């Protein structure tokens, strides 16, 4: 058989097997060949979004040459989206960074790794409190864990924060203030079981396509799944929706309150569920995340204001549609899943709207059965695993611990074996504050002098770049270090650039949106001198040790990243020896000790080498096997739930097994269109590109499909301003301006008075326009609404 015939036959076999599994509704049968035509296949989670699809990566001759959807993966059941299809090519852009680069006389020039590591360590040693680490939800779990340990356990500073602060911090505060513990109770199985799917400001058809396909696939089997899209702009998801409810930006709080008002007024709330499992809560003064208790009558009185007519007046959603939503939630026979992502999280009332959507599910009892779930999605592959679980936020510690709690600090100091009192009780700077202080001179409060960025691109993705990013580049003494795989809008302005290994060029572990922890092994070598981010952290820590930094020693005088093999220390700070042991496994097993402290138990590393991920808590059974948990708090599935009750919120903030139903009033946004700036601006992603485009713009097929940014406008607005499709316009906000082409009736269709700009294009920075105002609890900025004006150029 000719080689091409063989490949063609393999492709048809894979497609037929996947189709037959789908037809039979099987998700976990069959296997993928390990060796096909000299191509060796191994499993890995996809590098892109938070869905957590598994792929089989085909390697031949030291290169990735093929990608297959992993037939054994429950998440994607052998399927991939268009970005996953191209994920192998993300490694092979022609401009990979291959050498450390230091800015000398205004130019980035190649230097040795030794000089690079020395430079970083010396800067930190000179001013450890002025050093901050800025990471991401693309850090692997061991990378984020090492960064957290280096800074919090080693340097005794809490200035670590991730870009996930910009994408899901409000989901975290929403879960914490509702259930007392972070992350969704349900999982993707809810998508297979729901009768109604409500997308709240969410566009999974383009941003999480495999999950959306999973739902649409049910329709193709003849199942009835009602899709309700609640949004501010029509998207590809809207095309599949049974109902599209368009609300005025920021008024989703009124919509959620309107549903609750109707359930209460009609007496159709789930009295038994609420009386057994819930309590009511409202904001205290000064505002804290825990708020203060209110009784049902007070809640009822507060919510009474949100009649369907009043909500229609605030939100623009017709009163009968609010009643329709209430009808659905009042139906006990239906199973309802709510999905959300950036639309609810990038919101100056992000915590509040998260609370309200949880509240509608709790009030109506649509919780805890497969298909009945309020579920947030994440945009990055390990926003949950590395940021939320490893605790790389400035106030957090691994395993759901917080720095403000003395017991939690002691637990971390004991596991890290570092001296008592090492971890400060004051949270470090959250993202906006960190960058604001970096962009402020030291003598006027700018106490952050050095930031080390790994696996993210703040020069493109921070809001209001003219305030938070660019000023630092002109202030003497501010030093920006960036580890990345390609030149970016951030490396362009960096003082020191470190070339990093990407995805299957290193070992890794990610944690996806449904609490699923996923592991992979290194399959190919990185180009040139590119090296693992985790190694970079350990090498700097060891250099600090050599410079006499006592923080790099544990209580026994050993290096904080001490690793042994056969009883002998392995010098993992020397890259030549980094792969003498599996450093990931060593760090993961240490991190595992934290995960048992708040019922987020992980299995041993070895278990993940065999599985396509496991959802925590993962608990060992009497026969020695490890069992994952699909539905937390539901006693039929969660090993930690009290079996005497169907639902057990065992991390209740009120310590009485109750979740909190919050009253959160609608409040206007910090900036709205006015005469001077008459349009709403929303920013976001497009299907071709992932986040700032660092990877996807290197994939020629994706770059050619969507080569540059644009502004979506309503045709009536464009006609009034005499703007034709494709014409250049100047878009201005109070913070910056940008020239873009207008796109009328494009794939997204904003209503009159609204516009949309994607943020993937590093040559057209959408964040010159955006607002840095943030939610008071999550500190997450609002990228979804600010005011702009538009005028035709020329």
């Amino acid at each position, binding site marked *: 058989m000719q080689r091409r015939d063989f490949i063609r036959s393999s492709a048809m076999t894979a497609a037929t097997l996947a189709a037959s599994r789908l037809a039979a509704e099987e998700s976990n049968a069959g296997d993928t060949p390990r060796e096909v035509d000299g191509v060796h296949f191994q499993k890995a989670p996809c590098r892109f979004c938070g869905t957590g699809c598994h792929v089989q990566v085909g390697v031949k001759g030291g290169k990735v040459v093929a990608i*297959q959807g992993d037939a054994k993966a429950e998440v994607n059941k052998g399927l991939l989206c268009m970005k996953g299809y191209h994920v192998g090519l993300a490694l092979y852009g022609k401009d990979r960074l291959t050498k450390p680069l230091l800015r000398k006389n205004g130019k980035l020039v190649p230097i040795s790794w030794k000089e690079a590591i020395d430079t970083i360590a010396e800067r930190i040693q000179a001013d450890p409190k002025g050093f901050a680490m800025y990471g991401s939800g693309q850090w692997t779990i061991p990378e984020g864990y090492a960064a957290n340990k280096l800074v919090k356990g080693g340097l005794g500073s809490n200035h670590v924060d991730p870009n996930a602060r910009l994408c899901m911090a409000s989901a975290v505060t929403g879960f914490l203030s509702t259930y007392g513990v972070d992350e969704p109770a349900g999982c993707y199985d809810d998508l297979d079981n729901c009768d109604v799917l409500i997308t709240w400001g969410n566009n999974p058809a383009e941003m999480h396509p495999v999950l959306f396909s999973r739902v649409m696939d049910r329709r193709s089997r003849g199942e009835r799944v009602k899709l309700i899209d609640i949004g501010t702009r029509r998207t590809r998801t809207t095309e599949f929706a049974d109902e599209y409810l368009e609300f005025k930006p920021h008024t989703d709080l009124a919509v959620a309150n309107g549903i609750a008002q109707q359930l209460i007024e009609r007496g159709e709330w789930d009295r038994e569920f609420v009386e057994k499992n819930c309590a009511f809560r409202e904001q205290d003064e000064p505002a804290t995340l825990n708020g203060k208790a209110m009784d049902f009558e007070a809640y009822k009185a507060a919510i009474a204001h949100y009649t369907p007519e009043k909500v229609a007046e605030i939100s623009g959603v017709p009163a009968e549609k609010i009643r329709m939503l209430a009808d659905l939630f009042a139906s006990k026979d239906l199973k309802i899943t709510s999905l959300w992502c950036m639309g609810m999280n990038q919101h100056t009332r992000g915590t509040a709207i998260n609370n309200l959507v949880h509240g509608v599910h709790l009030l109506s009892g649509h919780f805890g059965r497969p298909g009945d779930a309020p579920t947030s999605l994440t945009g990055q592959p390990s926003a949950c695993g590395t940021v939320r679980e490893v605790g790389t936020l400035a106030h957090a510690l691994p395993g759901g611990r917080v720095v403000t709690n003395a017991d939690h600090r002691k637990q971390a100091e004991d596991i890290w074996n570092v001296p008592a009192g090492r971890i400060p009780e004051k949270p470090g700077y959250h993202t906006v504050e960190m960058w604001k202080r970096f962009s402020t001179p030291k003598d006027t409060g700018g106490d952050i002098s050095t930031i080390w960025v790994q696996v993210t691109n703040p020069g493109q993705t921070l809001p209001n770049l003219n305030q938070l990013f660019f000023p630092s580049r002109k202030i003497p003494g501010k030093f920006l270090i960036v580890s990345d795989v390609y030149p970016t809008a951030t490396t362009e302005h960096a003082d020191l650039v470190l070339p990093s290994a990407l995805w299957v060029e290193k070992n890794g572990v990610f944690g996806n949106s449904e609490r699923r922890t996923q592991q992979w092994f290194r399959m190919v070598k990185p180009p040139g001198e590119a090296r693992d981010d985790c190694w970079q952290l350990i090498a700097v820590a060891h250099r600090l040790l050599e410079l006499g930094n006592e923080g790099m020693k544990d209580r026994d005088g050993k290096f904080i990243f001490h690793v042994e093999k056969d009883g002998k220390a392995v010098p993992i700070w020397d890259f030549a020896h980094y792969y003498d042991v599996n450093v990931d496994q060593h760090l993961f097993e240490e991190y595992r000790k934290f995960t048992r402290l708040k019922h987020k138990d992980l299995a041993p590393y070895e278990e993940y080498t065999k599985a396509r991920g496991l959802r925590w808590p993962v608990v060992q059974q009497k026969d020695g096997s490890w069992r994952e948990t699909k539905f937390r708090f539901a006693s039929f599935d969660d090993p930690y739930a009290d079996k005497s009750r169907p639902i057990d919120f065992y991390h209740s903030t009120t310590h009485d097994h109750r979740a909190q139903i919050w009253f959160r009033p609608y409040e206007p946004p910090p900036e709205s269109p006015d005469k001077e700036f008459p349009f709403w601006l929303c920013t976001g992603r497009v299907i071709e590109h992932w986040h700032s485009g660092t990877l996807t713009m290197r994939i020629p097929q994706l770059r050619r499909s969507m080569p540059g940014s644009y502004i979506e406008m309503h045709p009536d607005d464009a006609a009034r301003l005499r703007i034709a499709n494709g014409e250049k316009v100047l878009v201005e906000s109070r913070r910056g301006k940008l020239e873009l082409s207008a796109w009328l009736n494009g794939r997204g269709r904003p209503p009159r008075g609204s516009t949309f700009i994607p943020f993937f294009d590093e040559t057209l920075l959408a964040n010159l326009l955006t607002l840095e105002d943030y939610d008071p609890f999550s500190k997450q900025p609002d990228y979804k609404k600010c005011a702009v004006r538009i005028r035709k150029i020329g």
Partner: protein
Amino acid sequence: MPISGLILTTRPGSEACVLDALRAVPGVTLGEPMGSRVPLVAEAPTLRAARDLTETLMRMDGVAFVDVVSVDFQDEEL
């Protein structure tokens, strides 16, 4: 020349006309349909053309979804 394994999902009632249309698309080899799902292999001279072909399939009347199962690009210059 990239070779991709795809599954095309048809909208209810559209199976026959979609299959007819697919038979006329160059570079597409159809597998045995299973209800609303059609496994197929798509071949194109370049990755760009492969993507364009997939986009074409997505836009066809009666097609609900196109999912990717595999892609082999070992002959492609990277």
